[in-house]
């Protein structure tokens, strides 16, 4: 009986991910090019925000992926702690740099967008502040991976950190909400139609989000492959030294 867990075998994962990767990467490229070109060249300016509304196609997907990357790391860490699948731990490790990049993109595009709209690059707004805290969590997580030599201990400790960090990240989110009122607008995407951005911007935004998600998946697959090979490489090198 085929089960999801068979992909926890590193060789099986390598084979499958190698087969899947070109399609995911291709899909990501297509969605990103279509979404960004559509958004950049063929959407009107917003009556209030002018042409800066075009930044939404970068800002919102990046912010979304910054949070989802952490969620994915949390799930992967839990799988590692419960079922001890090495691929899972390595996938969490592989996702962290991508999450960092997405967080930086969200922060920087937000700052550039904030300057003409709010008259300031940075405000201690709850959303902005929690993203900065999220960024610090990512930095700590990556630093811990790099600092520990034993791969299993590193995987265990980072997983524990990821779980504790998630709780504190949520706590911080509510704490900063309490601490300051925001400039940031509400959710751009929600099930409540009233809140949404208008349709002209909505469709290209969805395409861009799909592109960012596919890009994230493609990069995680690629980086996890690299981590698995790196692990094999280390093992073979160690064996050579012993011989």
């Amino acid at each position, binding site marked *: 009986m085929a089960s999801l867990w068979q992909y926890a075998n590193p060789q099986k994962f390598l084979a499958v991910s190698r087969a899947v990767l070109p399609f995911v990467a291709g899909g990501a490229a297509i969605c990103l090019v279509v979404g960004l070109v559509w958004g950049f060249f063929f959407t009107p300016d917003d009556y209030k925000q002018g042409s800066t509304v075009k930044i939404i196609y970068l800002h919102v997907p990046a912010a979304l992926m910054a949070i989802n990357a952490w969620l994915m790391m949390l799930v992967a860490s839990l799988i590692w702690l419960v079922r001890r699948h090495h691929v899972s731990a390595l996938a969490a490790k592989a996702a962290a740099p991508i999450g960092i990049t997405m967080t930086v993109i969200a922060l920087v595009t937000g700052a550039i967008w904030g300057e003409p709209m709010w008259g300031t690059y940075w405000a201690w707004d709850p959303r902005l502040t929690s993203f900065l*805290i999220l960024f*610090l*969590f990512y*930095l*700590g997580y990556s*630093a*811990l991976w790099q*600092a*520990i030599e034993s791969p299993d*201990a590193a995987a*265990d*400790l980072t997983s*524990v*950190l990821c*779980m*504790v*960090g998630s709780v*504190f990240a949520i*706590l*911080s989110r*509510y*704490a*900063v909400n*309490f*601490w300051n009122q925001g400039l940031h607008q509400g959710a751009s995407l929600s099930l409540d139609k009233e809140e949404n951005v208008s349709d002209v911007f909505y469709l290209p935004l969805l395409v861009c989000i799909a592109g960012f998600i596919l890009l994230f998946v493609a990069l995680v697959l690629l980086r996890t492959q690299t981590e698995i090979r790196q692990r094999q490489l280390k093992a073979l090198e160690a064996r050579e030294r012993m011989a």
Partner: protein
Amino acid sequence: MIALFWRDMRLAMRAGGGFGLGLSFFLILTVLVPFGVGPQSEILSVIAPGILWVGALLACLLSLDRIFALDFEDGSLDLLATAPIPLEGVVAMKAAAHWVTTGLPLVIAAPVLGVLLHLEGGAVRWLILGLIIGTPALSMIGAFGAGLTVGLKRGGLLMSLLVLPLYVPTLIFGAEVVKRGALGMEVQGVILILSAITLAVWALLPFAAAAALRINLR
């Protein structure tokens, strides 16, 4: 477990750094701030709660590596891990000893330093109350960070990076207590949240810290 608590206390005292070091750091920080921002009392009294809270945070952070590092080096942590008391209890006791040697002196010193920063009289008791409730959480979170990094040679800097983001909620609510207290606003809700954070941290983090220690002792 109680014996362990007193052992840690005695060790901290005998090392000399126990009460003194964190406290001196706290003092120096409060002395340096007016040099940085100027001696105007109206500015200082506004930022005083924040400075004192951040100072407490940093003073607490400075002494964290002491919680496990020495016992890890001389092997007594291995003995404690195999001892008949649960490792979670060991963690909690060590965090408690850390709080008594660093957190408690800070609480006592804070009003004096508040005078240096022109903290208003009404705010002082809220500052003390907030520190009493909040600093135990700092010690426990710190014990978790120390547990994660105990096996590392240069763990100090890494530990600050790991621990400081975890201090954010405590800091926010702790400073909020003083701010609201000084303005005469309703404080009970904030104090309750702050207590909830501390209690939750003490209830849950010993398990995470003990898990991290077991991994490091493997």
